[in-house]
């Protein structure tokens, strides 16, 4: 299941790190991220960009103990979980957590689905540097092969962070004139460009004919992303942690920054091709760049 479903529990410790490193666009880039339970690693415990993901259980009181072991204020905003003001992680309406400080964010896990968390301090910078992760809410019985109580079941499950990067921003620690315009030059899936993402165990889509692949897509970039699964039709079954009012069957779906969509793919024939995300320019609609991974159905 590509790194998903192995840890499902209602409480986590999340530690902020500002000393991460990742190759982005061929350059060694200092990244900031949240790890899970002190692992000193980000996404899937094997890279530091983006942040680690969390899996919690619908209906349970849940908590994230945030320990700030980095030399700047940070917060955790639980994007889409509709938590109360105190636990919303917005400095202007609650508070930020200072260096060496900690806070336990508490909330009731909402409807099963795909959610998001990120730092909300100087957000335009902290988010771009990598303080962005996914939260999966499992159904109330903790099932890892069903989307929600009464929802679709699946055989394989993959999580995608859509990400773009402006290398001119890489050494910037505070927002200002230099961050007025985001001009992405690097286009990624789960922190990897196509050359790495193609074979990445946690990104590629691998299954056998007739199996159902559940693809959770979080757009954590500053551009819209258009998802194509090599032209195969898929169902858009949920968004932002709720079922779609109407399931849409399509071969392409566009996802805005901060949105999440859950896609269900049931391939009917073998195929070996690229699944892609095209990042789009707001003004012209032109494709700014593409990230690809392998779709391998045997």
């Amino acid at each position, binding site marked *: 299941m590509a790194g998903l479903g192995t840890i499902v529990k209602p409480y986590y410790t999340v530690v902020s790190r500002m000393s991460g490193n990742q190759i982005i666009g061929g350059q060694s880039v200092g990244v900031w991220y949240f790890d899970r339970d002190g692992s000193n690693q980000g996404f899937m415990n094997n890279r530091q960009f983006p942040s680690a993901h969390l899996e919690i259980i619908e209906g349970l009181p849940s908590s994230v103990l945030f320990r700030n072991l980095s030399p700047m204020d940070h917060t955790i*905003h639980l*994007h*889409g979980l*509709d*938590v*109360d*003001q105190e636990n*919303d992680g*917005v400095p*202007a*309406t*609650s*508070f930020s957590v200072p260096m060496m400080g900690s806070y336990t964010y508490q909330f009731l896990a909402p409807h099963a689905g795909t959610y998001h968390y990120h730092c909300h301090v*100087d*957000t*335009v*910078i902290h*988010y*771009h540097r990598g303080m962005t992760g996914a939260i999966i809410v499992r159904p109330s019985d903790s099932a890892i092969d069903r989307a929600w109580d009464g929802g679709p079941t699946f055989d394989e499950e993959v999580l995608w962070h859509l990400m773009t990067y402006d290398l001119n921003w890489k050494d910037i620690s505070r*927002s*200002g*004139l*230099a*961050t*007025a*315009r*985001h*001009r992405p030059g690097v286009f990624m899936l789960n922190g990897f460009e196509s050359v790495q993402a193609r074979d990445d165990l946690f990104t590629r889509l691998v299954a056998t004919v007739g199996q159902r692949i559940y693809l959770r897509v979080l*757009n954590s970039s*500053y*551009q*819209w992303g258009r998802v194509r699964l090599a032209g195969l039709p898929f169902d858009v079954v*949920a*968004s*932002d*942690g*709720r*079922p*779609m*009012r*109407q399931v*849409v069957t399509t071969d392409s779906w566009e996802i*805005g*920054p*901060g*949105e*999440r969509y859950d896609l269900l793919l049931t391939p009917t024939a073998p195929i070996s091709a690229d699944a892609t995300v095209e990042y*789009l320019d*707001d*003004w*012209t609609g032109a494709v700014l760049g593409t990230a690809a991974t392998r779709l391998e159905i045997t």
Partner: protein
Amino acid sequence: MNRDENLSTPDNTPGDLPESGRRRFLQLAAASGLVLPCGGAIAHAATLGEAVEEMAAGPLWEIEAVRVEQAFSDGSTCPFFRYQAMGSTPSAGTVPVLSGRRGQVAQLRVRNSLTRGIRPTIVGGVPGPWIDPGTELTFDIDVPPMGTWMLTDAELGDAAGPMGLGAVIISRLGASISRRTLRSIGPRYDREYVLFYVDSDDRWNTAIDAGGVPDFGVYEPNYHTVNNLTFPDTAGDAGTTIACQVGDRVLLRMCNLGWMRQSVHFHGYHVQIERINNQRQSIYGSKDTIPLPGHSTMEVLLPINQPGIFPVHPHSLTTTTDNGLYIGGQITLIVAT
């Protein structure tokens, strides 16, 4: 008994924050350490056209096109052309909100105080009449079908949005039907607010302000306003802060006159998209982040199921800055008591 009849103050103007609510907001804001804009904050009561709407013969809408040099939190300024309310026309922030009923013919009186001609036009409609600089014109305009519309300027074309030249038109049902109904058979709502988004690339605005032509091939906006304001001035404006009470269902008329393809995130709540460009949508369930294309309007129902102060902002995060400096831009607040 329907929801509307339960309202204790059925004629409470939408978006109008009672004095007690205003005080409560200030208390909440103070308690939360929220920085409020000092002096000169714009705090219009947003009466959303109720007064003019009552006129049997169709409303008189009075606006003026003006040039504004707006200052931002980073110390920079940018020129805009704006419609502003004239006479009794209500506004949200500084955006005129023109209200009428479907089937009415409105009289639109426009004073053009710009140094260039304009053609006031409903987005998606046929270009309106030419108005010379320094002159005033009154003309008839059909109130569009029920919904949320934007008035802009056909003369500036694609640049009218970035220049900020816009107003909001709300078309309601006929007189015999409750104002607080989105369509003839529900859903009903308790309050309504207008959120009018504009994004601007200062290179376009500066070129047009100087009488020139911008490079239309490149558009990278660096200023982002809601109701012509940026945070925290949005939080000090009674027409822009979404003040409400637990149990309310709030109608948001979201208008994007910019060209950014927005994806607007609500902290604290999931919302229901009712209509996009005045067309009913039946695809999306409840969402916390909603797609709002450029030059489009959207009607959204926000059920207030918890108290608190929660931000609403687009998630392409340069939009939450003033010329790159966080925090500013298109952040506004829900204040639920």
